[in-house]
């Protein structure tokens, strides 16, 4: 089985979720005498490529066309489809993101492959049978599908597989791709990105605040805890609706869905729509002064107490163990 992995970069750095995608591909390849080829489009720091080998890629194809330095869903799909066909690949793996998911979908149409997103486990492959499990109803359930088409594109959720770091060296080969003017019809006017912060969808730890924080002026205690943990900050829907926090921090069914190792919810009661956005977190800690808050039922650990007293203590305790 020939597996191609789409690598997403950010300012020349390979995203961690793409290393997870390579590890995921390696897990499939290991069971099915497969090969794993990583495809990097546009600018990348050479020093970053080694990590792709350690994550399980045996070959890296690098299309260093400068037109690909700026992320473009259309151009990425055209480039990926050409390489998928040129390499006679059977399977394309991408890590879920605002860029990779639609690029993967468009690639699937171009190469005539089946498209399955939101995948959460390594597929079961036996002979021609290919079964894959994906999250549905915003994490409230799963479905197992048999993919019947011979060519396949899978978009994998974060934390679907343990990241591999003990692979070997991968060979690097330059490739050229087909992109046309039509791939750049969409013109980017401006990009606003918070610099230096841990991005919510990528974060290993998320600290979220709700109405229990009483106002945006009190967010300092959330930020201090997040800063100590190297975490991203999130919020509940009412908080973003009231403009206490920006929309891109809204965690939940109609906001950002997260699957970190640790999710700390502070002053959030736990509406079903919020739980849907966090229920694939590995560990959930809930801090709320209302012992009846429904969130406690979904939590692994709970503290019944006032956020304004608990959070500074928690931040200090974590600082103490980290020092």
């Amino acid at each position, binding site marked *: 089985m020939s597996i191609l992995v789409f690598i997403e970069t950010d300012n020349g750095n390979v995203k961690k979720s793409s290393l997870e995608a390579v590890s995921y591909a390696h897990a499939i390849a290991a069971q099915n005498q497969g090969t794993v080829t990583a495809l990097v489009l546009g600018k990348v720091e050479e020093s970053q490529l080694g990590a792709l080998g350690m994550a399980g890629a045996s070959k890296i194809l690098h299309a260093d066309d400068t037109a690909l330095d700026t992320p473009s*869903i*259309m151009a990425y799909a055209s480039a990926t489809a050409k390489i998928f066909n040129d390499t006679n690949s059977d399977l394309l793996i991408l890590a879920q993101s*605002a860029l990779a*998911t*639609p690029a993967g*979908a*468009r690639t*699937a*149409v*171009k190469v005539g492959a*089946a*498209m399955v*997103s*939101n995948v959460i486990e390594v597929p079961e492959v036996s002979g021609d049978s290919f079964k894959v499990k994906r*999250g*549905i109803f915003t994490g*409230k*359930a*799963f*479905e197992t*599908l048999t993919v*019947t*088409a011979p060519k396949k594109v899978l978009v994998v959720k974060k934390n679907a597989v343990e990241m591999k770091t003990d692979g070997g060296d991968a060979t690097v080969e330059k490739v050229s791709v087909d992109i046309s003017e039509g791939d750049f*019809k*969409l*013109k*980017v*006017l401006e*990009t*606003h*990105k918070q610099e230096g*912060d841990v*991005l*919510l969808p990528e974060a290993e730890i998320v600290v979220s605040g709700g109405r229990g924080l009483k106002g945006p002026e009190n967010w300092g205690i959330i930020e201090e805890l997040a800063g100590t*943990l190297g975490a991203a900050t999130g919020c509940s829907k009412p908080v973003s609706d009231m403009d206490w926090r920006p*929309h*891109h921090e809204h965690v939940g*069914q*109609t906001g950002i869905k997260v699957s970190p190792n*640790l999710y700390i919810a502070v002053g959030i009661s736990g509406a*079903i*729509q919020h739980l*849907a956005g966090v229920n694939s977190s*590995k560990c959930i*800690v*809930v801090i709320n002064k209302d012992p009846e808050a429904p969130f*406690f*039922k*979904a939590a*692994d*650990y*709970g*503290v*019944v107490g*006032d956020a304004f007293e*608990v959070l500074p203590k*928690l931040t200090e*305790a*974590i600082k103490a*163990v980290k020092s």
Partner: protein
Amino acid sequence: MKILVCITHVPDTTAKIAFTDSNTKFDESGVQFIIGPYDDYALARAVELKAAHNGTVTVLNVGLANTEPTIRKALAIGADDAIRVNAAPTDSFFVASQIAAVAKDGNYDLILMGRESIDFNSGVVHALVGELLGLVSVSPVMKLEVKDGVAIMDREIEGGKQSVEIPLPFVAGCQEPIAEWKIPNMRGIMTARTKPLQVVEPVGAEEQVKLDQYSLPEAKGAVKIVQQDQIDDLVKMLQNEAKVL
């Protein structure tokens, strides 16, 4: 301006999820169905653009006859007419193929939908439709203005947003705060009853996936409550037991 809005017919966000027939069918008993929340935002913005640009809004749903109350609600909100592709939505490629087949000859300036459905969460139908029609697809769109055949949009990116410009036509997956949800008024509800709802048969689309079965997450163990004055114990548990610090 001709706008096509694709809507899903999905269980309410608070619905209890259960399955029947050896976990191969969604249990609809006692479940209220709604317009997909993200699709509702797309529809609301379409109705505003229609008013501003003297346009028309057609709603499209891929579904069996039981989705018609949901389609009528979209008509009550302000769509002019509706098309129902008479088929159960099986997977994202099938749905996208039906949308593309309807849109192909419709000369729509904008094809809008939610960024994803809240039942199957594929989040790719807009991109598949875009590719099938050879149009640019953009998602998730939080702001959409149209002037002189060009759209200016804000779309969410990880940790921020991006403003983009694109000539019509295109396909967009929408989300809040692109518009305020609209609640149908009595006049809208009355007129919706007589607005045209055309039923068309599906086009053939190759089956790519087959459902084996649905499943539910394993039940969570009981929460471990830590006292407010024993925060050090919580940190120890997160380190040694949960191994997340």
